[in-house]
């Protein structure tokens, strides 16, 4: 699996947020994107996920299943957790497993992997911010997709949560997966590429 993006230019509200950004990642590689607020980290991730129209440039995913679109190779984890408060933690994850084409028998393991095994039957609305974040991380584990786009994955996580995130990423990379993460925090991942986006304007 190879993710290549050339000359990405994105305009939002008539302003060029990104200009001429290139990304090249091979199997097992991870890239951490840093930069000040407003530098375009989230915009870059959303653009890679195909959620924003490109003013210029192209994104290509090579070496995957040709039947699937680029977006179907990706997991996007945004600012918002995508958690439904009225459903239990288990129902939330089981839904994403079915919807994103994952393994619905793996929900228990995924919840255990993020340390939410004890809270599986609680309504997700009663979980704390950090637990909701963990729940959205479980989504990454329950449906296998090669490219992970993580926007501030460390938000609201405690040190145990950060460790679990790091081990999820490690397992994913060992299986040949790609990770692009935008963050301010030190994620403590081994051997990552770095990208610093420019000054905010």
């Amino acid at each position: 699996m190879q993710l290549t993006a050339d000359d990405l230019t994105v305009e939002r509200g008539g302003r060029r947020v990104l200009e001429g950004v290139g990304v090249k990642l091979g199997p097992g590689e991870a890239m951490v994107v840093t930069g000040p607020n407003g530098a375009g980290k989230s915009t870059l991730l959303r653009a890679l996920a195909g959620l924003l129209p490109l003013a210029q440039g192209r994104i290509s995913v090579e070496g995957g299943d040709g039947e699937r679109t680029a977006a179907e190779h990706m997991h996007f984890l945004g600012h918002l957790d995508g958690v439904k408060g009225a459903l239990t933690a288990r129902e939330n994850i089981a839904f994403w497993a079915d919807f994103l084409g994952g393994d619905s028998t793996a929900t228990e393991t995924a919840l255990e992997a993020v340390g939410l095994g004890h809270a599986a039957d609680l309504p997700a609305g009663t979980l704390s911010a950090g637990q909701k974040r963990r729940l959205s991380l479980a989504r990454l584990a329950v449906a296998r997709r090669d490219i992970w786009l993580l926007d501030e994955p460390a938000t609201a996580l405690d040190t145990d949560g950060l460790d679990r995130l790091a081990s999820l990423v490690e397992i994913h990379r060992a299986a040949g997966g790609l990770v692009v993460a935008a963050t301010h925090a030190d994620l403590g991942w081994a051997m990552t590429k770095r990208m610093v986006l420019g000054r905010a304007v």
Partner: protein
Amino acid sequence: MTRALLALIRRDFRLAVRAGGGVGLPLVFFLSVVAVTPFAIGPDMKLLARVGTAILWIGALLSTLIGLDRLFGADAEDGSLDLLFAAPAPLPLVVLAKAAAHWTVTGLPLAAAAPLLGLMLNLPPEALGAVALTLLLGTPALTLLGMIGAALTVGLRRGGLLLPVLVLPMAVPVLIFGVSATNALVAGEGGSAPLMLLLAASLGSLVLAPVAAAAALKGAQS
């Protein structure tokens, strides 16, 4: 692909019937509209019977607007909307699945409750069945047209207020064919032209509305 769509229908249905999902709201609104009409018209039983089917259709039309802003609004608020784009299914089918779940908890109960509310309007027995049938055939069109409005207003603040203004004009043909099909059925003309046109409106919107709503959602992502 089927698995993803069924999972989405199941989830939306479950969310609607859970506490706070607002499943009964359109139905209660429908009841209110029908219940206040006799107060406005007065105790003229003949007049009520004559305008009854029209009132039921107007009531149903207004009731389908209730909760329409939550169709995509709820997913946009918690970030699930972004993830709907990543489904292993084309976006028009994803939004169609959402519309199907929405119709099951809003449109279908309206059609089912219509005969009961018709009694309050002094409708003759043959009209009760007719209005239930035409609502059953017509409410899918109302939900689907409403979905286009919901998709167009998803990125807007106070989009919920704009939505009825957008959707009502589009729904006028459905209202016209719905009421005239009901009257034709009561008059004993089974497969009348208005009934066929009502069915055509539903089938046409079944094909076109998902494409339009998907395009509107794509356009809102910027």
